[in-house]
């Protein structure tokens, strides 16, 4: 089985977000970039599937050379090879087109990625890729097993889940608890250096969305503390002052 795992490069989850003075760019000074946490679930599950039943895991990232540290990390965790599409990921549709194009070239059986990236929270690249390839997309998936040419997934729905059997090829997006992310070991880190990382140029895509500016939410005016001895007063305040119950 040939698996393609798409990873994005996102600010570490503890990052305090700020922007350039003109509010047009994320302020990246001092920000550490990591593999998107949801993509790590996808990556580890792909590696587990490969370990159990053979095959290969290729990671793909659409990004400039500075993302290679995280691509190497994915190789250190256990992916076999990697593709970097040499472009700034301007919007989801751009990224999805690149993935679909290179996925077609590689004839993969399964494309796995996180349900969303924790930076732009688009929750959409998987759907776009699946549509471009004419494949089903099972989103968000909390469990994935493959046997022969059939996959069985659990898809999270509001307040429950669905069991979905579906033939390969397909696109699935990962959400906890699909797998337990792994930390690369020394051996993995050493071998990652020798694994192939192919850099390819992007296909051209017409721009459909343009980010104009970023802004931060308004600051809260401060907390109103209630004496724990009169905790019940909170309920009265929520009803009469905040008017939310």
């Amino acid at each position, binding site marked *: 089985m040939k698996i393609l795992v798409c990873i994005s490069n996102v600010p570490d989850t503890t990052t305090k977000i700020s922007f350039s003075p003109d509010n047009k760019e994320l302020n990246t000074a001092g920000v550490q970039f990591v593999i998107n946490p949801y993509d790590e679930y996808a990556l580890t599950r792909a590696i587990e599937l490969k370990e159990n039943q053979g095959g290969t895991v290729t990671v793909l990232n659409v990004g400039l050379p500075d993302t290679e540290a995280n691509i190497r990390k994915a190789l250190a965790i256990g992916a076999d090879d990697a593709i970097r599409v040499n472009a700034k990921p301007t919007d989801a549709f751009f990224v999805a087109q690149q993935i679909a194009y290179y996925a077609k070239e590689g004839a993969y059986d399964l494309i796995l990625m996180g349900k969303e990236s924790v930076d732009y929270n*688009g929750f959409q690249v998987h759907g776009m890729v699946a549509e471009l390839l004419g494949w089903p997309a099972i989103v968000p998936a909390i469990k994935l097993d493959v046997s022969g040419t059939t996959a069985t997934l659990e898809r999270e729905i509001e307040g429950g889940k669905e069991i979905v059997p579906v033939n390969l090829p397909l696109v699935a997006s990962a959400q906890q608890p699909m797998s337990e992310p792994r930390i690369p070991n020394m051996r993995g880190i050493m071998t990652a250096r020798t694994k192939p990382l192919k850099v390819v140029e992007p296909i051209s895509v017409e721009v459909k969305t343009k980010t104009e500016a970023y802004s931060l939410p308004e600051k*809260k005016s401060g907390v109103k503390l209630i004496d724990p001895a009169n905790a019940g007063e909170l309920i009265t305040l929520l009803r009469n002052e*905040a008017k939310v119950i």
Partner: protein
Amino acid sequence: MSVLVFIECADGKVKKSSFEAAFYGQQVAASLGTHAVAVAVGEVATEELKSLGGYGISRVLVDEEPRLKDYVSQAYTKVVAAATEKENATVIVLSNTNIGAGIGARLAARLQASYAANVVALPEVSGNSLKVKKSVFSGKAFAEETLTAAIKIIAVKKNSLEVKEPVSGEAAIESFSTALTDSDLTGAPQETIRATGDVLLTEADIVVSGGRGLRGPENWHLIEDLAKALGAATACSKPVADVGWRPHHEHVGQTGITISPNLYIAVGISGAIQHLAGVNSSKVIVVINKDPEAPFFKAADYGIVGDVFEVVPKLIEEAKALAK
């Protein structure tokens, strides 16, 4: 030209988030000088659909094909795409749910449309483009984005706009059908396992959430009883779901579910940045924590510095008294 709203139904009822989408769609239609039409798929209650008229929807197209009872992304996308074509829609509005966003993404690729997810406000119209405001960085920031393609798709984040009380008026119901192939239906669920009787977390106006401060699943009745007294849904922090005290679908935060209820009550949760990321767009935040230094107090509107085991029973009592 028209605005098309995708209506999501569960258990024969229109979801609250879809009424919001309808209201949003109608407002967009008004600012574009056109009308809003809705499309619904699968098992639907006619009375509920008619009530969309109160939100400014003149007609609802309904595809009642039995194979569409359960959501399959390709098939639903095909239906909405066909409705888009029939109604000559230039804007499609859906809610930013697992289903809505799943369709939105596929439609965007299929129709070569501009797509914006997590939209939190009505768009600004200028010429042929729309400028929308989206929630990004897991609720830590907003982005303003211009949508330029001929067709624009907007997925509206729940609870992000004040929906006006419905006026009287019924939408006309029209049946609608789309030719589907077997391959459109691949990936249909074999079985659905649903927790019954609970208020759905993603739809809830009030959420009561517990963290590691509850010490164990045996104390969860405190969260459940308070939720019940308030008509709220329950949620939890990540470590609580990780150790299995609560099911994963209750885990809120940067790697869990993002919610924006009117009231979020955090009980025994520290308020780590990853947790806040999933809940900080809640309208009112209440924090109960025995540690006055807990970071959550900085994000809270109301707080009680105290032991959950002493505080929560008092809240339950008071909330029950109020409910009577």
